[in-house]
C-alpha cells in the first residue's frame, strides 16, 4: 500500500489519479488482446504471417504505450500544455510532410516514417484548443476564442488535403464540443452547425471518395458500376447477425475470414460474430462509462484548462469509438477509424496511450492552490 503519510511524486500520483479511468483503459487493453486473438489470425494468414503475428506485435507495442501513458500522466497541467504545443507542431509538420513524401495507401497519403502523424495531431490539437478556450473564458485580455477559432483550420487543412475526412470530422466535432462547453452564444451554435452542414455538403460535392462512400451508403445498388461494392459493410453486418446474442464462441467465427480489416476497422464485427451481441454491448458500455466518468470529472474540475482538456480528450476518445461502432453496425458510411485500444495498430495505440495519458494527467485531483505556493505562504506567515 502506498503511504499517505510520506509524500513522493509517485504517492502523489497514486492518490490523485482517477482510478476509474485507469480501470476502464486496463479493461479495454485486456479485452483488446483477447479480441485480437479472434480478429487478427485470419488477416495474418492472408498475409502469410504466423497466426498470432498481430497479437504479438500488439503486445510489443503495449509496453511502450503503457510507459507513455503513465509517463505522461505524471505531467502537471503546465507541462501538459508545453508537451502538447511541441507535439502539435511536430505532428502538424509531419502531416504536411505526408502530402509531399507520404506513402499512398488505399488512395490516401496518411503515412510517413511508418507512423500516421494525424493520430498524434488529434490529442495535441484538443489540448491546444482546450487551453485557448479556457484562457479565453478566464481572461478577457487573451483572445482565446479567436486563437481557438484559428487553430481549427490550420490543423484541419492538411488533413482535408490528405484526404482524411474521418479525422477531420472527428477533430471538428471535438472542437465544436469545446466551443459549446465554453458557453458560446446559441446563435453561434447554429452558425457553426450551419457551417458544418455546408462543409459536409461541400465534401460530398467536391471530394470524389467522400461522394462515393456516401452514395454507396445511401444507395448500395446505384453507386458502383454493375455490382455495388458493399462487401465490407454487408459482411460486417452479417457477422453480427450470424453471431446473434451469445456468439459462435471464440475461434469459431467463419465470416472473419472474409471480412476486410478484421483486425483493425471491423474488429467490432468479429467480436459480434464470436462473442455475441451482449459482449458488444459490454464493450460499448465500457467506452460509454469512460466518457461519462471523464465528463463528470471535467464538470467538477475547478481549473478551467483541466476541465476543457478532460472534456475534449474524452470526447475525442468516445466519438472515435462511437464512429467505429456505428460504421460496423451500418449506421454510418465507412470512415476508416479504429476502435480505441482494441483495434490493432502501432501508431494508433501509442497515440491513444498519449491521449489517455494526457487525460489522466488533467483529471488528477489537485488542491485549489499549488502545494508549493501554499507552503511558501505558510512559511511567510511563520
Amino acid at each position, binding site marked *: 500500500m502506498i503511504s499517505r503519510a510520506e509524500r513522493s511524486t509517485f504517492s502523489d500520483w497514486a492518490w490523485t489519479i482517477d482510478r476509474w479511468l485507469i480501470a476502464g483503459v486496463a479493461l479495454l487493453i485486456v479485452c483488446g488482446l483477447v479480441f485480437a486473438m479472434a480478429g487478427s489470425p485470419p488477416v495474418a494468414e492472408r498475409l502469410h504471417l504466423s497466426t498470432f503475428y498481430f497479437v504479438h506485435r500488439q503486445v510489443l507495442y503495449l509496453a511502450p504505450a503503457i510507459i507513455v501513458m503513465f509517463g505522461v500522466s505524471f505531467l502537471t497541467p503546465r507541462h501538459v500544455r508545453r508537451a502538447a504545443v511541441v507535439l502539435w507542431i511536430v505532428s502538424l509538420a509531419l502531416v504536411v510532410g505526408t502530402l509531399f513524401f507520404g506513402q499512398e495507401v488505399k488512395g490516401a497519403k496518411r503515412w510517413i516514417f511508418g507512423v500516421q502523424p494525424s493520430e498524434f495531431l488529434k490529442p495535441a490539437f484538443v489540448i491546444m484548443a482546450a487551453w485557448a478556450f479556457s484562457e479565453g473564458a478566464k481572461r478577457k485580455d487573451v483572445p482565446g476564442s479567436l486563437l481557438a477559432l484559428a487553430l481549427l483550420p490550420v490543423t484541419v487543412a492538411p488533413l482535408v488535403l490528405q484526404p482524411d475526412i474521418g479525422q477531420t470530422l472527428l477533430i471538428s466535432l471535438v472542437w465544436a464540443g469545446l466551443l459549446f*462547453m465554453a458557453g458560446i452564444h446559441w446563435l453561434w451554435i447554429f452558425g457553426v452547425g450551419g457551417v458544418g452542414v455546408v462543409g459536409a455538403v461541400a465534401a460530398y460535392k467536391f471530394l470524389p471518395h467522400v461522394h462515393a462512400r456516401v452514395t454507396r451508403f445511401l444507395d448500395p445498388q446505384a453507386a458502383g458500376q454493375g455490382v455495388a461494392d458493399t462487401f465490407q459493410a454487408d459482411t460486417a453486418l452479417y457477422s453480427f447477425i450470424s453471431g446473434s446474442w451469445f456468439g459462435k464462441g471464440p475461434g469459431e467465427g*467463419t465470416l472473419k475470414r472474409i471480412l476486410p480489416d478484421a483486425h483493425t476497422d471491423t474488429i467490432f464485427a468479429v467480436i459480434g460474430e464470436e462473442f455475441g451481441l451482449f459482449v458488444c454491448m459490454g464493450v460499448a458500455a465500457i467506452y460509454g462509462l469512460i466518457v461519462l466518468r471523464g*465528463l463528470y470529472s471535467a464538470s467538477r474540475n475547478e481549473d478551467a484548462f483541466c*476541465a*476543457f482538456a478532460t472534456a475534449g480528450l474524452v*470526447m475525442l476518445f468516445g466519438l472515435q469509438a462511437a464512429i467505429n461502432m456505428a460504421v460496423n453496425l451500418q449506421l454510418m458510411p465507412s470512415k476508416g477509424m479504429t476502435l480505441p485500444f482494441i483495434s490493432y495498430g502501432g501508431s494508433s495505440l501509442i497515440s491513444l496511450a498519449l491521449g489517455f495519458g494526457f487525460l489522466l494527467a488533467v483529471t488528477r485531483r489537485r488542491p485549489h492552490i499549488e502545494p508549493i505556493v501554499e507552503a511558501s505562504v505558510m512559511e511567510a506567515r511563520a
Partner: protein
Amino acid sequence: MTAADTVTRDASKGSKKGLRRRLDGLFSTSLGKTGARMRMVAAGFVCLYVGIGARLVVIGFKPDPTTMRRASGETIAASRPDVLDRNGEILATDVKTVSVFAEPRRLIDKDEATELLTAVLPNVDARDLRDKLASKKGFVWVKRSVTPKQRDEVFHLGLPGVGLAPENKRVYPNGPAGAHVLGYVNIDNGGIAGIEKYIDGQGLADLHDAGFSLTPEDLKPISLSIDIKATHAVRDELEKGVTHYKAKAGAAAIMDVDTGEVIALASLPDYDPNMPGDMRDPSIINRMNVGVYEMGSTFKALTIAMALDSGKVNLGSRLDARGALSFGRFRIHDYHAQNRALTVPEVFTYSSNIGTARMALGQGVERHKAFLRKMGQLSRMRTELPESAEPIVPKNWGELNTMTIAFGHGLAVAPLQAMMAVSALMNGGYLMAPTFLKRSEEEARKSAVQVVKPETSEAMRYLMRLNAEIGTAKKVNINGYYVGGKTGTAEKVIGGRYSKTRLFTTFMAVAPSDKPKYLFLTIMDEPQGLPETGGYATAAYNSGQVTAQIIERVGPLLGLPPRFELPTQPFPLLARLGYGIANSPAHGGGGH
C-alpha cells in the same frame, strides 16, 4: 453574461458603445455555463451509446439468413404420403437422400471449393458452380440427391460453407405405368401434375408452408382406384398396338361401371415420373383426360339411347336408310350402306350414320342438346387430376350439327368423358363422375344421377353384345367374357377438312354384357392400314384388336371369371318385351 443582459444594459448607454458590447457578448465565452453545457454533452453521449446498444438489439432480432431459407422458396424437399394402388401396391413413395448445398457467404476460397466439389461430383458443371458460389446468396444447392459414397467424400472435404442436407426424393417403382395418373413432383418434392398435385391441393402444401416437418409416418397413404397390374397389362398391349399399327399415339382405359373408378389408364407416348424430362412437350399429354376428340361412331350409342329412352323409338322401329340423307348441300352416307330401311339393332350393328342422324332429328336439336348436357358431354369434366379439358361444342348448334353429332362428328370430348356417359348407359342408367381414388359402390351411388331408364340401359347392353356377335365389333368377342362393343372411326380435321386417310379410331367394350362390370376404351391416333388388315385402318382393325387383347389379358387379373356357357337369360327385361338374343354369328360389316 447573456446577450439579453447585454441588450438591456445597452439601452442606457450610447449606441456606439452598445454595439461593441453586443459584439463582445456574442464572442465572449463564460465559464458559468460550462457545467450545464458539459451535462448536455454528456446527455448527447448517452443518446449516442444507447443508440448503438439499440442497434445491437435490433440486429439480435434479425433472423439468420441461413435459417431463412426454410421460409423462402428454397424449401428442403418435403415428405409426401405414399400412393398405393387399389390392392395396396406402392405406386409412389419417398426415399431419403442427401443433397449438397453451399453457403457462398461463408466460403473462404471459392475456386478451391469449386475444384474440390467438381472432383467429387463429376456431373456438376464447374463454371456453373463457380458462378453460383460467387453469388452473394446465403444458400445455393450444389447437387441434389447424391450417392452415399459422394456424400462421404463431400463430408471429408471438410469445406466450411459446404453442407449436406437430408432430403426426400420421390420414387415411382413402376416407372411409366400409371404415370399420367400419378403425375410427378419437382425437385423440391412439390406436386406438379396428376395425383401428386391433387395431394398438395388437399392441404399438404399448406402444412409444409406452415412449417410442419412431416415424416412419412405421419401421412396417411392415398389409395387410388388404379390396379397397377391391369395398368401394366393395358400399357403393354397398347404399346404393342401403337407400334404394330404405326399410330402416332394411343390411349386406353378401364372403368368400373358400378363405381366410376378408373381401374387402368395408359396414354402413349408417356414418361417416366422418376425422370420427368421436358413436360412442355405436348405429345405426352394424358389423352384420356386432356385430349378432346370427335369420338366417331362410339357416340351412336348415346344417340340410340336417347331415342330409346324417349319412347319414340323402340328396338323394333325401322329407320329409312335407302339413300344418302341430304341436308342443304351436305349429304350423309353410310359406310356399310344397305340401301334399305334398318331396324334399330341394324342401325347399330351396321353403324348407320343415316339411321342415327334420323333418330337425332326425330328428337330435335334442343332435346338432343339437353340429353348430351345431362350425359355430361357439353361441359368440362372434373376429376381428381388437375388436368382436364373443355369439350369443343359448336357455337351455333343447328340441325346439321345435331345430325353429325349423332354419329360422333362435330363435338369433341375427352375420351374419359365419353366413357362416363357410356358407363351410365351400361350400368342401369346411373351417371357418376369418374374417380381416380378408391371408392365403394355405395359411395358412388350417393352422387350418381339416374340419366336413362334401366330398360334403356339393358337395351344398350343388348345392342353392344349383338354388335360383338354379328356387327362391327366381332374382333372383341372373346370367349368366356360375354363382351359387347362399339367401334368408332372419325376422320381427323386437317386444314379445315375431314381427311380420308388420317383417322382417329376408338373402341368401347363392356364385359360382361349381361352383368356389366368393366368398360374398356382404346383410342388410336392415325393408325395405319396393314397388309393383314387388307389396308383398312378403321377402328375394328386396330383399336378393336388392342381392346380384345387387353380384355383377354386383364380379365383374369381383374377377377372376371371366364364363363364358357352362354348366359341363358342375359337380358330379362328385354325378354319380357319379346326380344330374344341372337347368340349366333350372322353376317355383318367390317366395322366403322
